[in-house]
């Protein structure tokens, strides 16, 4: 394809080229909204059908880690926005700095996510054969606060009453099944989100390298803008995931 500097032949100006690229990225993001939308719909339907069981699941998540991750991701969105500003105003040293900060914050997010996942594996809260809501209550470790465990015990006891019928044992089986649905969605949605973060980190590494070569200027900074749009979209998905998975039906411990 014919190309003059950064300008491809089918465009008249760099501005027009950037406008088209941005529009294309937004159209891709619309498909991403609907891609995640399927999961959000599944979540909404099952939250509606098994409201109490989903509340039990939500209360088993670590609110402190979740809130910390929200702050980390918002901060990374800010540094990403600042990268766009640095590129637009030709600040050649600040640009890689802000991009690297964004990458570091993204990695911190993934690290905290790892700690959370590890916790869920340790507490037998991963859907499958060994899923057991009461595992943590029955096998407390020295680090667990008795108040938190007592809260979980009461939570499960109350929730069992809302399962439709049967002996307490049968009700616990039903509650376990419905809470597994919650955790399937938890791992599915946060896992897909984490995958997007990893792809975003890869894109950031690429623009950091290009920015160190001095490729981006006030006239040409389309890749920064596009990667920025992607990064902010991933941030928005997390804002909703945090509200839906961690916050609804939360009980103070």
């Amino acid at each position, binding site marked *: 394809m014919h190309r003059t500097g950064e300008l491809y032949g089918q465009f008249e100006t760099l501005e027009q080229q950037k406008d088209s690229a941005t529009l294309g990225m937004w159209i891709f993001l619309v498909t991403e909204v609907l891609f995640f939308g399927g999961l959000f719909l599944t979540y909404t339907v099952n939250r509606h059908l098994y409201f109490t069981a989903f509340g039990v699941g939500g209360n088993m998540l670590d609110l402190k880690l979740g809130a910390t991750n929200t702050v980390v991701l918002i901060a990374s969105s800010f540094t990403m926005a600042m990268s766009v*500003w640095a590129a637009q105003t030709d600040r050649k040293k600040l640009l890689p700095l802000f991009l690297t900060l964004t990458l570091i914050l993204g990695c911190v997010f993934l690290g905290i996510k790892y700690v959370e996942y590890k916790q869920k594996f340790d507490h037998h809260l991963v859907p499958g054969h060994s899923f057991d809501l009461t595992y943590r209550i029955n096998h407390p470790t020295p680090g667990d606060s008795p108040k938190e465990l007592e809260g979980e015990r009461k939570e499960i006891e109350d929730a069992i009453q809302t399962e439709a019928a049967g002996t307490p044992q049968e009700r616990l089986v039903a509650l376990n099944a419905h809470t597994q649905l919650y955790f399937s969605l938890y791992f599915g949605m946060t896992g897909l989100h984490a995958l997007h973060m990893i792809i975003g980190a890869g894109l950031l590494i690429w623009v950091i390298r290009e920015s160190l070569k001095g490729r981006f200027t006030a006239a040409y900074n389309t890749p920064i803008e596009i990667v920025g749009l992607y990064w902010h979209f991933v941030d928005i998905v997390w804002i909703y995931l945090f509200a*839906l998975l961690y916050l609804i039906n939360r009980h103070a411990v």
Partner: protein
Amino acid sequence: MSEHVVSPKIYVVILLALLLGTYLTVSAALRDFGPWNIVIALTIATTKALLVVLFFMHAKYSPKRTQLVVMCAVFWLALLLFMTMSDYVSRVDYRGVRYPVSQNFFLTHSPHS
């Protein structure tokens, strides 16, 4: 049409607003407002998302056709959720039992039901 450069001042203000929103939504979640808890959580989340889209993603300063594409995402997602949920919240089986109680294993498989 020259490119719009958003000043760092605006970005800082948005950052502070997003952090404030996170603080508010966590503290609201730890208090009991009954059915309003969901409404508060989703209203704050949507406000935060709106701030990100308008300022961090520059939708406020984008051409109209880009803004139209953004609106399309919201519209199609709303349609997906609204149409499906209007079915689920109104589903009743032939006995007049509401879904999902009608699907309950112990009700449908009990010899006495």
